[in-house]
């Protein structure tokens, strides 16, 4: 009744091309932004920030990055953990080498570094495809984690082999280190997420995104109609690496604070982010958010229900969680291969006709 485009006349091209053509969507988007920026920071506490909000924001960035590569360009990557580690270590090296520069630029730069590394490991994608490529990206995962473990230069020769984020401030408010406050880290991550999502959304709507999708749908046909596969694939790897690097840097500097690379950025992280985009929806920015939210919330909910309400031992709940996540993935692939995003689309389609469906 309220959700429809009828009567919402567009008089300019830019109005016709906007991201949210339906008015209620647009309003919802601005309301979400206002809530995220102006209301949540005043209500947030440490538990909410650390258990739910920060991981959600950071994984959303990683999921957007991986979704560009897997969902839009069709190049399956299992190296996300390794690339996040690149972002984290680049950020650490930059933070310690140039302490006077604002951390905002460090995070952006570490995204850039990761993009370069990602392009390097994306080069074989021009020769190998499908499963072979998926397995080849595992080479990146294992090699990078090993590299950060074994080469002392990366962790500044610290005795423990860990990297620790030193205290850095933005406008005089500490965002990394031990003395941070929940709202500051939250806002810092949120700013990055909003920028990343805007950039990703507009990239995928434009020329670059169309080329990626052409490559995904059928690379040979795309090549014949004039899409340069070298450029398209490598830009996808680069853009994806940029976002994943940013998320890795934030994950290290703001969320964890101290990182042991094999633990924080192991192969499980690669799978986790991949699951997020499968459950959320391949080839959808909204899906990246939905998938990240789902997989961040699921363990918290299971813990609250299983451990706190039923009093089960934590190991049983952990095993149940594996069963549920695995089962959900299979279920989603069977029922709705396009994930939560497709469910959302279907719901919106139904809403447009409600209450008078054909």
């Amino acid at each position, binding site marked *: 009744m309220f959700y429809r485009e009828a009567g919402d006349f567009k008089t300019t091209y830019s109005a016709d091309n906007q991201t949210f053509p339906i008015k209620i969507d647009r309003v919802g988007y601005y309301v979400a932004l206002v809530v995220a920026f102006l209301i949540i920071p005043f209500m947030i506490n440490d538990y909410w920030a650390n258990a739910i909000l920060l991981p959600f924001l950071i994984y959303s960035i990683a999921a957007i990055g991986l979704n560009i590569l897997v969902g839009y360009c069709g190049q399956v990557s299992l190296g996300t953990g390794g690339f996040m580690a690149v972002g984290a270590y680049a950020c650490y090296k930059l933070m310690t080498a140039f302490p006077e520069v604002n951390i905002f630029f460090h995070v952006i730069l570490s995204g850039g570094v990761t993009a370069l590394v990602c392009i390097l490991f994306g080069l074989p994608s021009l020769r190998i495809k499908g499963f*072979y490529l*998926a397995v080849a990206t595992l080479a990146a995962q294992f090699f990078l984690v090993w590299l950060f473990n*074994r*080469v002392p230069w990366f962790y500044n020769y610290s005795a423990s082999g860990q990297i620790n984020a030193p205290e850095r401030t933005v406008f005089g408010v500490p965002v990394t280190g031990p003395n941070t406050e929940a709202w500051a880290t939250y806002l810092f991550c949120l700013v990055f997420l909003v920028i990343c999502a805007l950039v990703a959304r507009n990239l995928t709507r434009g020329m670059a995104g169309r080329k990626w999708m052409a490559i995904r749908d059928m690379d040979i046909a795309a090549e014949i109609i004039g899409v340069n596969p070298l450029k398209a694939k490598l830009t996808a790897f680069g853009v994806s690496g940029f976002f994943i690097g940013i998320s890795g840097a934030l994950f290290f500097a703001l969320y964890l604070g101290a990182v042991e690379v094999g633990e924080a950025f192991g192969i499980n992280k690669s799978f986790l982010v*991949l699951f997020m985009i499968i459950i959320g929806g391949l080839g959808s920015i909204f899906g990246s958010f939905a998938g990240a939210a789902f997989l961040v919330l699921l363990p918290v909910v299971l813990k609250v229900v299983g451990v706190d309400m039923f009093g089960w031992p934590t190991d*049983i709940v952990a095993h149940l969680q*594996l*069963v549920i*996540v695995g089962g959900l993935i*299979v279920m989603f692939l069977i029922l709705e291969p396009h994930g939560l995003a497709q469910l959302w689309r279907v719901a919106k389609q139904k809403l447009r006709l409600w209450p008078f469906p054909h």
Partner: protein
Amino acid sequence: MPEQLAFAMEVFLNGLMAGVLYALVALGFVLIYKASGIFNFAQGVMALFAAMTLVGIQNGQVPFAHLINAIFGTHVHTFGWNVPSVFALIFTVGVMILLAWAVQRFVFRHLVGQEPIILFMATIGLAYFLEGFADLMWNSEIKKLDFCMTANTCLPQGINIAIDEFTFNAFGYGFFIDNLDITATIVAIILVIALVAFSQYTKQGRAMRAVADDHQAALSVGISLNFIWVLVWSLAGFVALVAGIMWGAKSGVQFSLSLIALKALPVLMLGGFTSIPGAIVGGLIIGVGEKLFEFWVGPLVGGATENWFAYVLALVFLVFRPQGLFGEKIIERV
């Protein structure tokens, strides 16, 4: 004979043995991939599940004991009996066949005709599910696997004295070769011969190859796809069981067993996804390559190169030969 060379030869031999074990896991992948086009990431977890089931039945554990105790507040753990290995093995084969049927019936029958990459992701989901399920069923602590056909003939462990003495007399340096590795090699060879014979000379085997060639053509001449797929998953389950026994006897039955799947992936890339000889040769190349690399280059760069060497080797290799050593030539059409 210089000592360095003797060391290198010992490393080489051990690499060959490790390669056979990798090939054993890779075989399971190839079987399923050939017959159904599914790249089964869950193969390693299947090996873990099989080994856990075997040990659980041997020790008379109550399945889901932890869960039952948590829900009903009881304290059951074991039935209090020990099952002989042979019967436990038969039971486990039964469980793996049941698993194959369930996987086929509840997962992949619904995914027929989906893109390969969707199927691949489904097997990742399956791997997670099975891992959690195995832990819930048999609990996740590290278990010791003793596999004995009769009371006295167990899986041999420890250094092989004969080889040690022989090489000591010949080169002045005794090679350390584990008996278990030798057994695994023999078992793997028998398994491969049996699989090849099965797929070449039996009716079901021929049907399996027909399905691998072309699903629809096979269906049109009256081959039951469902039956063949259950058969293939059962075979893969059996291979997983053998791999699980060998690896489990080597390093205990625990979560890290499922990571052998990750070891088998570069083997597959190298050998090609569709070739049984490829899996064997790829396994040997990877096994020898990573051991020799660790031996010569490892000390220079800080060690633990085994984690990634196989992948990088396979990656470099693929750039020159995208379909692997023995893979079918990739023909692309629009």
